């Protein structure tokens, strides 16, 4: 299986997609210097500067989530059906390996690659605020959970790629992500005006499709400490069920649910790949 992991890593390196994201991120990290630049240009006190840095860190963590997911989708969506169609797998599978080994090897390869990239980007983010005299640890505390983003998206894309071509598999993965994002961001604020139970059911459905909101909360509690005062505060009044819906608490089972989702998606994909013809 290590051969397959190595091959997948080599392929990922060859795709150069990570270079593109690296360049984009370096550009975006420039933004983290804005608070410093403002302070020097217009003055302002230390507290304002720190709030600026905090926002830059939050923004940077979001970027890392986004780009590592994109990278994982990109590499996973074309891993099975597209490779079968190109004829790569027809020469590999007659070798004495199980199909699940190949599948798992590809999964591991992409995950290692995305994780390595996300870690590198986190280090860059840390460095960019550290050189401004603000060494922060929040991004490191959030990293294990941030890494779950590419795992979540990549696993789903890989499972879809076991029977769909690269473009359709990535399209469906992105659509699942968009649904989860929509449910989390747009259904909550309207809770005051609509039937909360119905909205809640839609949110649950979206979390079945992709537990992104759950994961988002897990990351958030790691970085929330640096939220500027007033940000993300709960409204003080309103019906209790609306309040809870507006700001769902993090539960102990959340991480288990994300883990279970990943395991099941991985299994489903592997079984489909195991049962299909490779031709």
């Amino acid at each position: 299986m290590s051969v397959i992991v190595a091959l997948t890593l080599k392929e990922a390196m060859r795709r150069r997609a990570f270079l593109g994201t690296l360049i984009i991120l370096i550009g975006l990290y420039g933004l983290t210097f804005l608070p410093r630049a403002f302070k020097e240009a217009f003055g302002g006190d230390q507290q304002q500067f720190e709030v600026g840095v905090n926002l830059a860190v939050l923004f940077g963590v979001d970027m890392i989530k986004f780009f590592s997911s994109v990278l994982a989708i990109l590499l996973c969506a074309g891993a099975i059906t597209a490779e079968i169609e190109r004829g790569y797998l027809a020469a590999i599978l007659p070798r004495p390996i199980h199909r699940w080994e190949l599948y798992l090897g590809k999964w591991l390869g992409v995950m290692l690659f995305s994780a390595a990239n996300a870690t590198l980007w986190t280090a860059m983010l840390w460095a960019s605020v550290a050189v401004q005299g603000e060494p922060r640890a929040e991004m490191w505390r959030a990293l294990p959970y941030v890494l779950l983003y590419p795992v979540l998206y990549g696993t789903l894309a890989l499972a879809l790629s076991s029977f769909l071509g690269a473009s359709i598999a990535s399209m469906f993965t992105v659509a699942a992500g968009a649904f989860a994002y929509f449910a989390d961001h747009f259904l909550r604020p309207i809770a005051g005006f609509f039937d909360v139970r119905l909205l809640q059911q839609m949110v649950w459905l979206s979390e079945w499709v992709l537990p992104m909101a759950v994961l988002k909360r897990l990351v958030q509690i790691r970085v929330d400490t640096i939220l500027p005062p007033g940000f993300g505060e709960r409204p003080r009044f309103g019906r209790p069920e609306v309040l809870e819906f507006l700001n769902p608490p993090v539960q102990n089972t959340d991480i288990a649910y994300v883990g279970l989702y990943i395991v099941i998606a991985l299994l489903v994909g592997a079984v489909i790949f195991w049962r299909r013809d490779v031709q």
Partner: protein
Amino acid sequence: MWAIETRNLRKVFRPLLGGKPLTAVDNLNLQVPAGTVFGFLGPNGAGKTTTIQILIGNVYPTAGEAFVLGHRAGALAAKRKLGFLPEKFQFHDFLTAEEFLRMHGRLAKMDGATLRKRIDEVLELVGLSERRRSKIREFSKGMQQRIGLAQAILHDPDLVILDEPTSALDPLGRRRVREVVQYLKERGKTVFLNSHLLSEVELSCDQVAIINKGRVVKQGVLEDLLVNRSIVSIELQQATPQVLEAMAKVAQRVHPIDERRVTAEVAHEDDVPQLARAIIEAGGALMGLQAHRETLEDLFIQTVEGESK
């Protein structure tokens, strides 16, 4: 023991969105003795590649069974001793020839020292020693097919399955493949090969099976199949019905080509003079006559055409 055995093997492709199912392999029964070079022949779309894909475990049969080296097709134990060159070969072309073979050797669980030695050997065998550090992407089509052959024999397998191994090769390359097949045979390996170049199959195979529409229509030892039969090309001033009738009494088959030319098949070389006599006695004006021993191509065409009539 059979190196390959199939029992009532069947594969039906069903289009996902309705449409007519297509039977690519239809109750195929094959027996390939170990240690032979076996030619697997048939017209385009006969189901050869599909059968091969079932044998190596890439495709699941709809019904029936396939055994490879005594194991169920696709089992790890079978795959360990199997080498395969795909028809539509497409390899990880960002690797160099050497890296590519090293990867396949490791997938085949070869140990480092043996692998290094074998890579030199097989590159030499397929004539790519000088290009070992070139990327496969930079290879010509024929060179890619050669590296595919190298990959198939790398781990010294007991059974080598080659799906059209010479489709992209020049005459020298094709001769090299024949030499490789000979080399494998001398080492007691079984070679199962599918090719449309029948003159080559005739040169290298011991046994053949001809399939059509997913079924075996002829199978046997090449020498027995091509026993003594002769094909006679005849030119007459006029191929009249009387002459054709007279020929039909001697020949097994008479096949008029045009006004003047006829081919006939006789069961034995010794019947050729008798055929000539029959033509003359029927009043035919014989302009030319040439007999040759039946070739595999003749047998193939006759078998497949006879089948579709």
